[in-house]
């Protein structure tokens, strides 16, 4: 019997009880679709994390005071003059380390910002230097960045994010307008380009001003929130980190390197960690989906057992006509495998459709290998779960099978 004939005869068997076959098919279909779709969701979220992190720039290192939060000051034994201040940042820059391109100090706080008629509360106000706009995606959309001269004079100028700009000035351009940050007037000199989301805050709802002005008016001259250090190239990040550690230990007078008053966050190691956690997330989702596929497979066994019982007489006839044990086994296995293959194909189609829609904010990205994998597994399940019923059919004695009604 050729392959096509076997398939045809299997389809005929499946069609003989449509409702039952459809229900079984549905079980396999749901299993296959959920495997592909959940793997796609896991993969999609992994890609999202990776994209967000590479947005930050893989050439940057972030130095923060350890043990404290934003501007909290280093509460360690190192003492107040040994925390990371803007002066430390300037000294690092002045040291002209071999693999360090620039050092960008950042202070931030959260304040109420008003335009001519409306105001917004809890807006991130970031104080930094013009170099900030050279890192990653922190690009000026319109207008211009403030200058080094503005930093020197602590000018009341600001670059604001797009969301904030349209919220404060819904009718016209925010450029050149006056805004009030906690009572202090700033003139808007530039608007940021659209920023991708990184964390929980909206990066498009931000006021960026010269660090000297922000320290003067709001945060004071203590510890900065962070120093963003840009390495000369992405290959030099690790070297730059080593240089930074030595320099910082000197500047801060660190004796015990196990108790450094700062931490250096390496974006590429962050990326690796995120990728690992995304991978384990994907595996977890895949495992959950695999269980539903298993349940679908057990459904196949059940249906095939019923089919074999129902068709005992047919088995008897076929054996009387000379069907061997293997021929009967092959017939029922082909039927089970065809049933699950059909379910698998429908499952792939369902998954392809389902992947068009975002899933809790994550756009699923189908893994190419998951489609042949799920199809292969569905056929394997048909064969695995069909073996027992098929073996029972094949083992029947012809005279007993013929006697069945």
């Amino acid at each position, binding site marked *: *019997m*050729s392959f096509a*004939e076997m398939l045809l005869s299997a389809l*005929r068997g499946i069609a*003989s009880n449509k409702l039952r076959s459809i229900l079984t098919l549905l079980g396999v279909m749901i299993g296959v679709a959920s495997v592909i779709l959940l793997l796609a969701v896991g993969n999609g979220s992994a890609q999202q994390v990776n994209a967000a992190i590479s947005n930050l720039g893989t050439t940057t290192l972030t130095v923060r005071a350890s043990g404290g939060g934003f501007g909290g000051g280093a509460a360690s034994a190192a003492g107040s003059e040994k925390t990371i201040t803007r002066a430390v940042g300037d000294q690092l820059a002045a040291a002209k380390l071999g693999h360090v391109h620039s050092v960008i100090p950042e202070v931030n706080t959260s304040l109420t910002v008003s335009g001519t008629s409306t105001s917004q509360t809890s807006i991130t106000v970031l104080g930094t230097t013009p170099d900030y706009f050279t890192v990653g995606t922190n690009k000026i959309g319109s207008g211009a960045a403030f200058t080094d001269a503005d930093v020197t004079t602590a000018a009341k100028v600001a670059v604001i994010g797009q969301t904030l700009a349209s919220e404060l000035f819904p009718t016209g351009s925010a450029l050149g307008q006056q805004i009030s940050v906690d009572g202090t007037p700033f003139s808007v000199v530039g608007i940021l380009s659209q920023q991708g989301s990184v964390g929980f805050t909206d990066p498009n709802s931000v006021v960026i001003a010269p660090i000297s002005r922000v320290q003067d008016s709001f945060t004071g001259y203590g510890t900065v929130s962070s120093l963003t250090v840009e390495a000369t190239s992405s290959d030099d990040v690790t070297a730059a980190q080593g240089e930074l550690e030595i320099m910082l230990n000197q500047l801060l007078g660190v004796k015990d390197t196990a108790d450094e008053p700062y931490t250096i966050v390496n974006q590429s190691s962050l990326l690796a960690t995120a990728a690992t956690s995304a991978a384990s997330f994907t595996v977890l989702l895949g495992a959950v989906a695999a269980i539903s596929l298993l349940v679908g497979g057990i459904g196949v066994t059940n249906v095939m057992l019923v089919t074999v019982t129902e068709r005992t*007489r*047919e088995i*008897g*006839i*076929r*054996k*009387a*006509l*000379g*069907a*061997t*044990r293997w*021929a009967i086994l092959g017939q029922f296995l082909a039927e089970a495998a065809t049933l699950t293959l059909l379910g698998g194909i429908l499952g792939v189609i369902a998954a392809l459709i389902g992947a068009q829609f975002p899933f809790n904010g994550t756009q699923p990205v189908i893994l190419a290998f998951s489609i042949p994998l799920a199809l292969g597994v569905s056929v394997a399940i048909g064969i695995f779960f069909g073996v027992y019923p098929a073996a029972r059919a094949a083992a029947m*004695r*012809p*005279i007993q099978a*013929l006697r069945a009604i």
Partner: protein
Amino acid sequence: MTVLAPAVRTPVLELHDIHQVYGTGDAAVHALRGIDLAVAEGDYVAIMGPSGSGKSTLMNLLGCLDVAFHGTYTLSGNDVSTLDENALARIRNRQIGFIFQSFNLVPRMSALANVELPLVYGKVGKAERKRRALEALDTVGLADRADHEPQELSGGQQQRIAIARALVTSPTLVLADEPTGNLDSASTNEILGMFDLLARDGRTIVVITHEQHVAEQAHRVLTIGDGVITSDRISESRQLSSAWQSTGRRAQ
């Protein structure tokens, strides 16, 4: 028609001292108690007997659907009493054509597909299969019903399809188990007429029946009772034709 003397005709099947026992110990049922039988090539034999006489058991053994507890069974020179399951399946496929009381066509399969089925298991190529199956359907006069499924056909037609299926492999032995048991008299006569034709073509036919008029169509009538053959005679129809021809097989 040339009729050979019994002595020179080779037996197609030979049973020697066949015993069949079902169950064990006190529950053992001795269905056959020493059957000796030889059927010559081209013979048309009817086996009669009341229910419980052992004729179905004998039919299962002759059809290689079951293996005897004791004794030897030789089919066209091969001892089949010692064969394994797969070898028996091959014998059923190549050497035996079954015709059952309840037709036993596979449902939801066209008449043509049903007739092709033994050839499928005999690993005959697709084109060859179709040609032979159509030929067999033509023999039973149902070539025009090749695409019909069993449930669309009358009982008589279904049995003719079953005969086509039994003949399609050109078997050594055609084995019919109460072939007219489920048919009205018109269809019965049709089927018996067909058996006559087959016998005239030199097919070896064994029919199991409990109907006298069916048995008398055969050339030779065996009666079985309590697991042994109680009588073995030439049928009335044969005796008549023998007398008329003043020659014949087993003339006494």
